[in-house]
């Protein structure tokens, strides 16, 4: 299950909406006490069908998580014309079995689609999302 505060959830959705029609991407960091922090990342692909985080930005964030005693909790990105479900490309590239993969779809301007998955060895498993106060 993905556990996320209302503020963090809203921030991820707002990021996805802001970057629409390009895909938005970022990470969720989680502290020992369970607090989730949103880290917006640049999509170097600047594309409506692909995202790629900047390699040096990823390294910097990973070091920052270590320094703050946080763990990588989730990797999020948006789909801007399709459902919030991992694409074949997402599955084949997914390299963080320890993280949740959050998908947000911005295909509808009114309806929020926010789903969470584990992607391990090419197998996708959806999990519940619990949005806290």
């Amino acid at each position, binding site marked *: 299950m993905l556990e996320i505060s209302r503020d963090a959830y809203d921030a991820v959705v707002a990021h996805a909406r802001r970057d629409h029609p390009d895909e938005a*991407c970022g*990470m969720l960091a989680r502290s020992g006490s369970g607090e989730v922090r949103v880290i917006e*990342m640049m999509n170097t*692909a600047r594309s409506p*069908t*692909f*995202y*790629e*985080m900047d*390699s*040096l930005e*990823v*390294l910097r964030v*990973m070091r920052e998580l270590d320094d703050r005693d946080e763990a990588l909790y989730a*990797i999020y*990105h948006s789909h801007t014309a399709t459902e919030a479900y*991992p*694409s*074949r*490309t*997402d599955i084949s*590239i*997914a*390299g*963080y*079995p*320890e993280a949740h993969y959050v998908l947000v779809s911005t295909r509808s301007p009114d309806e929020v689609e926010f789903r969470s998955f584990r992607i391990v060895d090419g197998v996708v498993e959806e999990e519940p999302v619990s949005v806290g106060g």
Partner: protein
Amino acid sequence: MLASTATRGLAVAIEVRIPTILRPHTGGEKSVEGKGETLADLLDDLESRHGGLKARLVTDGALARFVNVYVNDEDVRFMGGMQAPLKDGDSVTVLPAVAGG
């Protein structure tokens, strides 16, 4: 002379940080040690003890498209890729690219 060679021999160890997804190749270890004057040498050295690791990192002799390798704070793609030079005490980090469609 012998002592200095021995000392240098110990000092060439390069720490390599391994991401979770590749730890099955290192017996679960988060970091391993290797040696080499280039990234290609280092990966060959690691492969001799951690079978299967190289195939996850290298495609047709080049760094695999969705793998990032860093020497200290630099992406090896900006340092000559597989020919990136390494020196004593460098720290190498392997991270899967974060990308998708």
